[in-house]
């Protein structure tokens, strides 16, 4: 660790050293050298764990201008900005000129010589980044526990007694939640000595925040916590896309000068008729240069795209670590059986529904063929026991949240539908993209609780929201509202709809729940099912779900032939029995079935199994559909 101190605590020193060296020698590749240096350092064993993370260390604990990392989603992209890449400073007393580097910095040194010939203007791009929306608590904790960065609290911060008690209350609330979470929590605490108290302190600032005038940090989901960040990107910004998730390594900049800018406008002499002043509204200024204490700036040095945010797997693409995962692959069949048993218990003994739920959780949009997204598998779980009230669907969500890295439960109450902003909208006054609940990272589980829907009228906003949900389900796209036009952004969201009757939204697959057991006390029943899982068991499940999703898949020539024959035969017997759409969904189910078993090619066994469960499912839903009169 001592060796790492320099480049973590004082990365700018490294940058400046290289900049200085490049001035003497004529070769100008110093920028590439800098990124290469940091990339090399981070590649070293465990090196990245020494870098403190903005996700779990409160901002005021972090040293300004040190290297930090941030696991985030690109929520908005601001306009590119021009900055002084290199400039001369003049010492007022000695008149000595020094060439400085402006890269990775927000503020220049004193005495800039604006007319110097050495000044270089460069361009950089700013992204507004937020923590990954809907990230499950277990993910956060697990990441926090692997981070070995030791952060020394600044002396000015003394945790007050009162705050601690507030946190303790919070803790009690959490204890009512399944024990499993507590397990993971304890594990985290053990791994890190003082981890527990530290984590409490991480939440402290959020309490403080409430007292100051609220600044809308523009999180996609309501009730999210954590810092938002302005990430300055210096190269290759075209390769980033909105809603990408990534881990950013960059230099933290929290200079108060950044936020002071907005205050100055009132105080500074009113004689100045700077045209720059009138072109930005107060809102825009607030959004684009918020106080650095709330929205720190991060000057990006290295990024790692996250294909998933499961802490149990290495973040890189799977091929790199194939060897270490080979053993897990072998276990997949047994884990699948255990998981199936667990789901069966959760779904009140319905094996078929449990199987479909499992398939749903490993679905993933893997390709798009012109407008059709392939691989999506929206599941509508109807027949959720309504007598138990919201308890059942809620508990089910809790169980799922413990398994998937990010999830969000949208309770489809009339009020929510009419008032929530689901689709992001461009706010031209503040010049930013107002986030909406559908601005989610890839592979987020969206859990729609339709049992909460009551009679009433949807207003136009509600109708738009329902349409937006429908679009996500059918085309996996969200049309962002840019006022004068709409822009389509592809999404990859796993939508699960829990409803009493058939859902009013479209779905790829509709399973009617047939409970085999009717526990007298639903809550206690589910509670015991949840707590019965040990944390190691849960970890196995988590690993399994993410692994299965990323497997490759192919269909051999022979199987193709068999499937074709099968289809033709079925059509021959009864043309009405199976249509092209049915074949589509059958192929989808077969694919997921194979992946769930850890197989990367379709086998005839899996094909017939897929056919079998599809027949079972259809035989269930048809009479049900007629009864409800909800047939499309």
């Amino acid at each position, binding site marked *: 660790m001592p060796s790492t101190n320099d480049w973590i605590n004082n990365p700018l020193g490294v940058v400046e050293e290289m900049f200085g060296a490049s001035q003497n020698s004529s070769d100008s590749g110093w920028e590439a050298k800098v990124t290469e240096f940091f990339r090399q350092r981070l590649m070293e064993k465990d090196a990245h764990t020494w870098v403190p993370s903005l996700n779990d260390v409160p901002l005021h604990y972090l040293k300004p201008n040190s290297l930090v990392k941030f696991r985030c989603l690109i929520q908005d992209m601001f306009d590119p900005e021009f900055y002084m890449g290199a400039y001369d400073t003049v010492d007022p007393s000695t008149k000595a000129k020094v060439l400085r580097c402006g890269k990775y910095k927000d503020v220049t040194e004193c005495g800039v010589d604006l007319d110097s010939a050495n000044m270089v203007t460069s361009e950089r791009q700013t992204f507004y980044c937020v923590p990954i929306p809907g990230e499950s608590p277990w993910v956060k904790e697990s990441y926090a526990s692997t981070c070995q960065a030791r952060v020394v609290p600044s002396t000015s911060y003394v945790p007050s007694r009162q705050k601690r008690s507030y946190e303790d209350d919070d803790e009690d609330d959490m204890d009512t939640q399944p024990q499993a979470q507590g397990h993971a929590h304890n594990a985290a605490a053990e791994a890190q000595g003082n981890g527990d108290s530290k984590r409490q302190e991480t939440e402290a600032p959020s309490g403080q925040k409430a007292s100051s005038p609220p600044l809308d940090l523009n999180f996609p989901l309501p009730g999210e916590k954590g810092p938002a960040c302005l990430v300055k990107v210096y190269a290759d910004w075209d390769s980033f896309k909105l809603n990408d998730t990534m881990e950013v390594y960059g230099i933290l900049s929290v200079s108060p000068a950044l936020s002071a800018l907005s205050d100055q406008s009132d105080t500074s002499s009113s004689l100045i008729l700077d045209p720059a002043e009138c*072109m930005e509204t107060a809102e825009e200024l607030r959004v684009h240069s918020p106080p650095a204490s709330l929205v720190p700036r991060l000057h990006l040095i290295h990024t790692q795209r996250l294909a998933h945010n499961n802490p149990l797997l290495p973040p890189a693409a799977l091929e790199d670590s194939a060897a270490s995962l080979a053993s897990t692959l072998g276990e997949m069949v047994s884990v699948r059986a255990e998981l199936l048993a667990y789901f069966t218990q959760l779904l009140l003994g319905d094996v078929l529904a449990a199987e479909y739920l499992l398939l749903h959780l490993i679905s993933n949009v893997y390709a798009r063929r012109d407008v059709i997204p392939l691989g999506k598998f929206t599941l509508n779980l109807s027949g959720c026991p309504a007598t138990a009230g919201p308890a059942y669907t809620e508990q089910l969500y809790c169980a799922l949240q413990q398994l998937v890295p990010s999830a969000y439960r949208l309770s489809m109450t009339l009020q929510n539908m009419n008032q929530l902003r689901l689709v992001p909208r461009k706010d031209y006054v503040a010049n930013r993209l107002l986030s909406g609940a559908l601005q989610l990272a890839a592979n987020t589980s969206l859990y729609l609780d339709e049992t909460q829907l009551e009679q009433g009228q949807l207003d136009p906003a509600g109708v738009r929201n329902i349409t937006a949900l429908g679009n996500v389900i059918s085309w996996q796209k969200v049309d962002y509202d840019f006022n004068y036009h709409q822009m389509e952004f592809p999404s990859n969201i796993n939508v699960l709809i829990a409803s009493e009757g058939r859902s009013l939204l479209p779905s790829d697959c509709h399973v009617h729940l047939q409970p085999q057991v009717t526990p007298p006390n639903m809550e206690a029943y589910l509670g015991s099912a949840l707590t019965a899982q040990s944390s190691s068991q849960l970890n196995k499940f988590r690993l399994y779900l993410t692994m299965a999703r990323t497997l490759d898949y192919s269909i051999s020539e022979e199987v193709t032939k068999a499937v074709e024959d099968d289809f033709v035969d079925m*059509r021959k017997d009864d043309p009405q029995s199976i249509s092209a759409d049915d074949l589509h969904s059958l*192929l989808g189910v077969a694919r997921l079935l194979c992946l769930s078993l850890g197989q990367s090619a379709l086998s005839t066994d899996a094909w017939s199994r897929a056919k079998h469960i599809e027949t079972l499912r259809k035989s269930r839903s048809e009479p049900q559909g007629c009864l409800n009169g909800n047939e499309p």
Partner: protein
Amino acid sequence: MSSPMSTPGGKRGRPSNPSTPATSPPAQRRRGQPSSNGDLPLMPTSPPTDMPDPLQDTSLFSSPRRSVLPSEVDMSSPLIGARGTPARQRPDLGSVRKSKQVDLQSEPSAADGAAAAEQPAGQRLVIWGTDVNVATCKEKFQRFLQRFIDPSSKEDENSCLDLNEPLYMQKLEEISIVGDPVLNINCGHVSSFDAELYRQLVCYPQEVIPTFDMAVNELFFERFPDSILEHQIQVRPYNALKTRNMRSLNPEDIDQLITISGMVIRTSQLIPEMQEAFFQCAVCAFSARVEVDRGRIAEPAVCRNCNTTHSLALIHNRSMFSDKQMVKIQESPEDMPAGQTPHTTVVYAHNDLVDKVQPGDRINITGIYRAVPMRVNPRQSNVKSVYKTHIDVIHFRKTDEKRLHGQDDENEQRLFTEARVQTLRELAAKPDVYDRLSSALAPSIYEHEDIKKGILLQLFGGTRKDFSQTGRGNFRAEVNILLCGDPGTSKSQLLQYVFNLVPRGQYTSGKGSSAVGLTAYIMKDPETRQTVLQTGALVLSDNGICCIDEFDKMSDSTRSVLHEVMEQQTLSIAKAGIICQLNARTSILAAANPVESQWNPKKTTIENIQLPHTLLSRFDLIFLMLDPQDEAYDRKLAHHLVSLYYQSEEQLEEENLDMAVLKDFIAYARSYIQPKLSEEAGQALIEAYVEMRKVGSGRGMVSAYPRQLESLIRLAEAHAKVRFSDKVETIDVEEAKRLHREALKQSATDPRTGFVDISILTTGMSATARKRKEEITAALKKMLQSRTKTPVMKFQQLFDDLRGQSETAITKDQFEEALKALCDEDYLTISGKTIRLAT
């Protein structure tokens, strides 16, 4: 007064010393030029000692300058002196918004620079920091104005000018008549006339445009010495092909002339910007004028007349202000890479360009790109290292303004590179281009070749013809297509695909759209409280395709607005005091489900989808998408679907024509290919039409109407466009005939007789059905006549009686229709279940 001194050039001839570095940061330096001729602005080559301090600075304006370039004197003398036409400030060139004065500390360095600049200036007089020699530049530009002829000009604003005369001289003449002292110059013209001049214009607009101004004014007043203008002519260049896209702006474009396209998203209120402050002494009423310098007014502390200190007060009413407006523009959606958010840019409009654009307008902006450092706070020693950028507008050009007139504006919108055009032409030359393109269309949807071909032709559209002089108005060039068929036959997917393919496509669902949503509605703007017209899907898809899903679920009132759109291609609106007719030259691609959810082959199309025949006859092609139920088909379908599930994306790409190529192909053909009917093709069409008429006449019914002939022509033209051919030939007609017949065979076959019967679509009833109806009515009438003694009878009883009499089965519907027919003849009246004979 000193103010008119501000000829475009004079203003800028200000002691400007190295001030602009602040405004024009080191971009140029990055290009590796030494600072001496880098970006120091147009300071006339004056000795370094002449570096004025702010006080001298102001006085300089009223005092004649000693050490200015000869040309500098030229700038003002002939114009102000001779004619007395006032010059007008050009804040757009940055002459007013003074750039930051250099810091005192840096003065030595600036002086060095100035000294260095003197050497080249000694040999050849150029404006400081550029390679522009004023005299040469002026001369070149005057030559351009006098000589430039563009015989192939297509711009409509030149329409009334003689193309073989020097274009801009005619424009000058126009100015002398109209009195609007603005000369718009197409940079493309400059570039083709004198590439060097064009380069200078783009690189040093701030210096070159005033020179142009001078040149124009000299020329103008020479030629029209007696004309009186409001102010001197200002040159406004446009169409500088430096930059097309906002995204590609980079530091190297700073202080250059650029043209970008975008959409206005916000305009600020008018900002009065003080140009000159007027001070009056409270003691002796002596007045003083002070120029605003970099947003600061140097208030005179001492009255020069009576030497009283602090006696001068600012008189607002007598100060001079200029108009300024902040406009925000955003990238147009077409220019954006997928998955990114649009960029925005701030633009300043000055003087008469203020309020020229409204939010929502698509515009091309020509202006000078600027970057200003973030304001330095006097109390803070360090600066934010970021610049603010904006564009000072010189010229606005709305790209969509002509859409209200009948012109097609697509030609100027899309530009194709030579290489691209070459590939497209190669593709078009291939004999199987038609099949290739149709299979590239929605490759994920299997088969339905003819439907895809139909849609392909729809995407190309016919040739727009104008018959307004002969009184028929415009002929519809757009092809309308209706798809009907069983649910689950991927109709919606086809629609989605088309919607994603065309630049101006709209997608609506019949269930969710109202007449208002399709046409236009009046809204109160929350900010201005004005009523504004918001256009709906049909108007928005002008020149594009409007995809309407679930066409059958649309309410009748909604559907009725389509009548006008689908034939006249316009939309008339009369609401809230706004009466207007909007263009809606849109093709309609609609999808409808049969009423009984499954297609009933025993019924006609009309009966199956229950749409009014008036509407159906406006569709050129009506396709049925049915489940073919055939083994070979099933097998191929299965293979197709299975392959979807394991092919990797690269494989998919290779197999099919790229969607982007298809898009470009269509856009190119639509804008550049306008096929005309050839002689043979005309004959073939006539034959085809006569034949179609003949088929029906044999059975006593009409099987083709002029509308069908028009459809055929459109389809043939579209097919010629696919081949990039300027002539419609017989093969095009053959294909049009085939496709038309295919569609008819599917949709207009009378299920009772098996014949193709166009009257199903045009009158909603097949000829046989009509005949049958007449028979039943006659029989009923006969029966009623036979029993005149009972003038009142029960409905059911009469029905049974009639059925008993007739040898063929009569359905209740038929009976009711017959009754209604008699009722219309005033033969009887129906009230509830009783029927009363009229007496």
